[in-house]
């Protein structure tokens, strides 16, 4: 930054000019003039740094200011704690979120498995019964007839 006394370049982190020794910053306890500090309120009111066509946000505490909005006011107040509500009624849920389609699907699968097992058991039982009619372990024709 430029030294206000000798107009020489001096590092920004220095409190005094390294060339002439003049103080670069006023003491914290010294009286400040309105132009010496960044006036946030003025900057706010006059749209400091506002891009063309933009608009300033509502003033702090103005109606419509969101309670949780941290802008300009620091951290906002958290909203009141609310208990999680109950799930929506079942009639408004889509079918795939209801349990009954899955229950029906599982029941159908179980019935199919039982039917297949029963058929296999019946077939094996029939085959076992038929094996008793096989002659000499060869293909056999059973000729059913009656006396009449």
């Amino acid at each position, binding site marked *: 930054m430029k030294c206000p006394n000798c107009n020489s370049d001096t590092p920004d982190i220095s409190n005094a000019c390294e060339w002439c020794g003049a103080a670069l910053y006023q003491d914290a306890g010294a009286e400040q003039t309105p132009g010496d500090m960044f006036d946030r309120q003025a900057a706010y009111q006059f749209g400091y740094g506002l891009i063309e066509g933009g608009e300033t946000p509502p003033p702090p505490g103005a109606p419509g200011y969101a309670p949780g909005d941290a802008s300009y006011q620091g951290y906002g107040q958290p909203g009141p704690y609310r208990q999680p509500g109950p799930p929506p009624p079942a009639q408004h849920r889509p079918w795939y979120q209801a349990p009954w389609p899955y229950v029906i699907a599982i029941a159908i699968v179980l019935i199919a498995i039982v039917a297949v097992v029963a058929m296999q058991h019946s077939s094996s039982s029939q085959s076992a019964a*038929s094996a008793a009619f096989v*002659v000499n372990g060869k293909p056999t*024709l059973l*000729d059913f*007839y009656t006396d009449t």
Partner: protein
Amino acid sequence: MAPIVDGLAKKYEGKVEVRKLNLSNDPTPANTFSVSAVPTYIFLDSTGAIIDRQEGGNPAALQNAFEKASKM
């Protein structure tokens, strides 16, 4: 049909066995195979599985069944 069956049995002797079941004497086999009419012809393979079933007299179909059973 009996002469036809006897002729086919002789033709396929050694390949297909024939077992005659008189339901008038013992109806049990009829229940086992759910036979409700005569004549009925049931062909079994060597394991006892049914490979063909015919009800009524059809010599051509019976000969085809013999041929089929003889190749198993």
